[in-house]
């Protein structure tokens, strides 16, 4: 009697399946409670990884709700790689369809933001340019110049006040969120990711720059304050090259 890893794995994630035959206690009897140690280890370790990866989501819904939700998530989306630091990539889509969380419409975007912050935390190091470099560029060349941006950078657009919700759950004395769309820029000036509330125009500008387009092509929105956007990027050590 051989126990295949397929059958061992299937019952780990499906509590309705009995422990595979061929596993025994020291007296040679079926060992279902012993098998349950592995079931429990898998569920608890993956749940703990999600708790660690989504601290704001966890705080927003509470420990009991989060762990119950994680139990559903981990069976639907077991990890595809041993890099647990990135586990939970499908959480935004999952939350959009997860019936018990339907009343909290902003949860998927909070999950997106937390994923972006984790990616930023582990993103490649980048050496920023001296902000002075920008002023050395001749005015007639500025609009045809392009910039390379740090790999930690990410933009999250939301119909909900995700910046305010994030701050209200991570910092003392943060103002209560007011209902409005918000767009967040994730940066990592040194080793810790930061979030910044930015305008739609600024977000479009940065997204265009990320694609490698010249500065001049970002000027499609008259509400854009290009100077402020560039100083935010430079101040956050997010510009690694200007060419």
């Amino acid at each position: 009697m051989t126990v295949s890893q397929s059958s061992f794995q299937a019952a780990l994630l499906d509590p309705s399946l009995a422990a595979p035959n061929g596993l025994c206690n020291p007296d040679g009897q079926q060992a279902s409670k012993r098998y349950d140690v592995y079931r429990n280890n898998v569920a608890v370790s993956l749940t703990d990884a999600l708790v660690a990866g989504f601290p704001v989501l966890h705080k927003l819904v509470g420990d009991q709700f989060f762990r119950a939700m994680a139990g559903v998530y981990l069976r639907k989306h077991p990890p595809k790689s041993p890099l647990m630091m990135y586990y939970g990539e499908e959480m935004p889509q999952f939350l959009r369809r997860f019936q018990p969380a339907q009343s909290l419409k902003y949860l998927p975007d909070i999950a997106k933001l937390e994923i972006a912050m984790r990616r930023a935390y582990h993103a490649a190091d980048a050496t920023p340019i001296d902000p002075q470099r920008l002023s050395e560029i001749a005015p007639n060349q500025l609009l045809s110049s392009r910039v390379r941006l740090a790999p930690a950078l990410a933009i999250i657009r939301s119909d909900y006040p995700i910046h305010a919700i994030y701050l209200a759950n991570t910092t003392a004395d943060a103002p209560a969120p007011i209902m409005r769309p918000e767009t967040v820029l994730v940066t990592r000036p040194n080793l810790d990711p930061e979030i910044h509330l930015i305008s739609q125009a600024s977000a479009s500008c940065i997204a265009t720059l990320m694609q490698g387009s010249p500065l001049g092509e970002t000027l499609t929105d008259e509400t854009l304050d290009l100077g402020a956007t560039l100083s935010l990027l430079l101040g956050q050590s997010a510009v690694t090259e200007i060419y």
Partner: protein
Amino acid sequence: MLDHNSDNHLPPLPGVGYKPQHYSAILADPAPVGWLEIHAENYMGNGGRPIAQLRHLAERFPISVHGVGLSIGGEGALDKDHLARLKHLVDWLNPASFSEHLAWSTHDSHFLNDLLPLPYTETTLTRVCDHIDEVQETLNRQMLLENPSSYLAFAESTLSETEFLRRVTQRTGCGLLLDVNNVFVSATNLKTSPQDYIDDFPLTAVGEIHLGGHDEDEDETGAPLLIDSHGAAIVDPVWALLDYTLERSGPKPTLIEWDNDVPDWPELAAEATRAATALSKVTA
């Protein structure tokens, strides 16, 4: 078979599993810790604080890289992407040791984040040896293989765990990581003698010892069921089993593993001090 990398070994001193919350405390006063162990997978990001800290620590301490995700006991082929990430880490860090587990954790592209057991048969022996050959050839270094904690036995097993491990070392030239707490946990759970296990273990192949805490439970028959949790202090019978082992093996690099409910540095350092005392009682 690979040659040993002769100038870059773990010292026969206590080490601890590195936790980022201890970063400043370790740099300020590491005594009695002589080396650090990291989980490989936590340092496979592209940059940022984890890698910056590791670079800094590696200037001060010999580092042991301990993998938890390679799935050496897996029925399928090793994950080539994961092996490439491991090679990248080992190449830039040049650690004093690399170790992994006699276990599987990935099947059918799903990673289960636990060390799952395998039966000990000629078939699994061949598979484990093939995977270890591939790892050692890719990394161009010897690896250590760790004995697991067992909660159950496979009816199909035909080899004892010690015989299985001995034959793995003979066929691949790998070393062994002897987890004394795992020996105690398995022996309790499977009603065998931990001393007999140590007596039968190929101690000359041991490059590192692990110690950790476990939880106590019972199975449905009321028999004790110990669970390897790495979340508590090391119990006295495990310290006694360390003494028993060291008397036979001589001093070995000895690690305190505490991964869950991690204590403040002084409590962890006190466990390392107790390991230093055990090591000081034996001579090479």
